């Protein structure tokens, strides 16, 4: 865990960790503690009196059909983002693993969306699907479908899923490609000699051996869809139309900042914290397993 040879100094190590600890304490731990504390309080409408209400805020949340709907919507959204972007990336990575010529060129063309901010990704797709000027909306009209994400909740949901998944394809592609290239060639050759075709080899050898990568990406993608997609939603649909794209992380912001319902917003924060903690624990347990793999 640390070096055998260490330096001896009474105050220097504390001085060195001080900036990190100060920022952590002031901007992470204290606000998180505040969120936890406020989740047990309720203010009246004018902010004049505050009451300690135990788990009342949480109970109200779970009785609130809007919150529950947002919860299920978030699950659907993250499942859709995760599956579509991982599926697409796996397909491309498998193909890139096969071709010899031009593989780096494809890689270059595929990795750049990682660097695009979620909000910008949202705006780009928002434009493509714009009912008045969008290219894709125009094409869809040609097929007889009148796309309108301003009115149709399903269209809006599909739009944010595509934008969020598009951005994540690069990340998944890179990790899948690395995973594929780490699979011993001898295994695949042995299977080929035994007469297994490419499809069969993929499902019986490559895909199972890729499972550590897949599992890791699953966790990362779910975390991404839960938390990093705020920009996609906020810059485009703003949770609308109606509530159609109001996912949990947007709802926390909206209820806390626009609605100014601090108790409820803090309770929502606490629930989201539990989600991150769960995801982090899963991720780290998996990492430990990967070492022994």
């Amino acid at each position, binding site marked *: 865990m640390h*070096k055998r*040879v*260490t*330096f*001896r*100094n009474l105050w*220097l190590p504390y001085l*060195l*960790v001080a900036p*990190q600890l100060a*920022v*952590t*304490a*002031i*901007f*992470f*731990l204290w*606000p*998180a503690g*505040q*969120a936890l504390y406020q989740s047990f309080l309720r203010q009246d409408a004018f902010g004049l009196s505050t009451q300690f209400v135990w788990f009342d805020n949480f109970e109200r949340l779970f009785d609130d059909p809007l919150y529950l709907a947002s919860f299920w919507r978030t699950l659907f959204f993250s499942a859709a983002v995760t599956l579509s972007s991982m599926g*697409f990336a796996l*397909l491309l990575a498998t*193909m*890139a693993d*096969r*071709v*010899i010529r031009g593989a780096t060129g494809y890689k270059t063309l595929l*990795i*750049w969306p*990682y*660097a695009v*901010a*979620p*909000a*910008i990704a949202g705006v780009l*797709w928002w*434009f493509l699907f714009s009912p*008045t*000027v969008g*290219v894709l909306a125009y094409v869809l009209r040609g097929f007889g479908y009148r796309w309108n994400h301003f009115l149709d909740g399903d269209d809006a949901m599909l739009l944010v899923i595509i934008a969020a998944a598009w951005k994540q394809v690069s990340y998944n592609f*890179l990790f899948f490609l690395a995973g594929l290239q780490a699979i011993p060639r001898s295994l695949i*050759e042995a299977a*080929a000699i035994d007469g297994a075709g*490419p499809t069969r080899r993929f499902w019986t050898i490559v895909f199972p051996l890729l499972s550590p990568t897949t599992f890791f990406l699953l966790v990362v993608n779910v975390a991404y869809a839960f*938390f990093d997609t*705020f*920009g996609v939603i906020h*810059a485009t649909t703003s949770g609308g139309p109606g509530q159609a794209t109001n996912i949990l*992380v947007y709802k926390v*912001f909206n209820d*806390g*900042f626009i609605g100014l319902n*601090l108790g409820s917003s*803090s309770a929502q924060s606490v629930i*989201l*914290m539990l989600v*991150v*903690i769960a995801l*982090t624990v899963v991720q780290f347990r998996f990492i430990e397993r990967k070492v022994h793999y």
Partner: protein
Amino acid sequence: MVERRPGLTLFAHLVLILGCAIVMLPLWIAFVASTHEPSALVSGLMPLWPGDRLVDNYERVLEQGLRSSGAIPVGQMLGNSLIMALAIAIGKIAISIISAYAIVYFHFPGRMLCFWVVFITLMLPVEVRIVPTFEVAAGLGLLNSYTGLALPLIASATATFLFRQFFLTVPEELAEAARIDGAGPLRFFRDILLPLSRTNIAALFVILFIYGWNQYLWPLLVTTNQNYTTIVMGIQRMVTVADAEPQWHVVMATAILALLPPVVVVLVMQRLFIKGLVETEK
């Protein structure tokens, strides 16, 4: 490739080309839109080839932006974004490398506690503590300032872990030799450890620069003054105009300008980028 099947290889190329085309589509259309005059875009049929207004449009956006809505020129937003991204990346690296150094090379009471406190930051993204963090920043008078944009974001568990991991692989003999030669801890850090960490720092810088540049929620909260608008959040105000079609050629030119710096960083430093990406996830 195990067997020779030209058909299959051709198929693989086709899928890849199609995939790249899908991935590139938004960028191409955005670029095309940013080079036309506004009337070309609202006539119903979007052109698919760049127009002749490339220089005009970008010049106008950079120097004026959407002044009518009270926004600052996009050139100024780019400056704000650059300051924020650099401050976050450099700040994170600086405070992480020294705390990792302390944790690995010193034996002091509370060492493990420090480690765990840093670890906890992984579990508390801004998104889950929005309101109280805003209150703290407001209480410290950090609203509408560059410090407020960067400082609250510079604690970093991943960077600390990365440096810790790396320091653990540095041979013990180096520290021993340094001590025998009479170098103190600071000298050892500056003359031996820092030069050794160069590649790690560079790889991390690429990742953190992108992270900093793409911040959205936090700048949105701490800046109410237009002068501190960063480009990624500035674009939102251009898109959500009430009851009117956004000025798409301006919006798309801004989008291109907003995504260009981080994308260029990724493409130019591809190797470092991939190294950083893989290592920060360990």
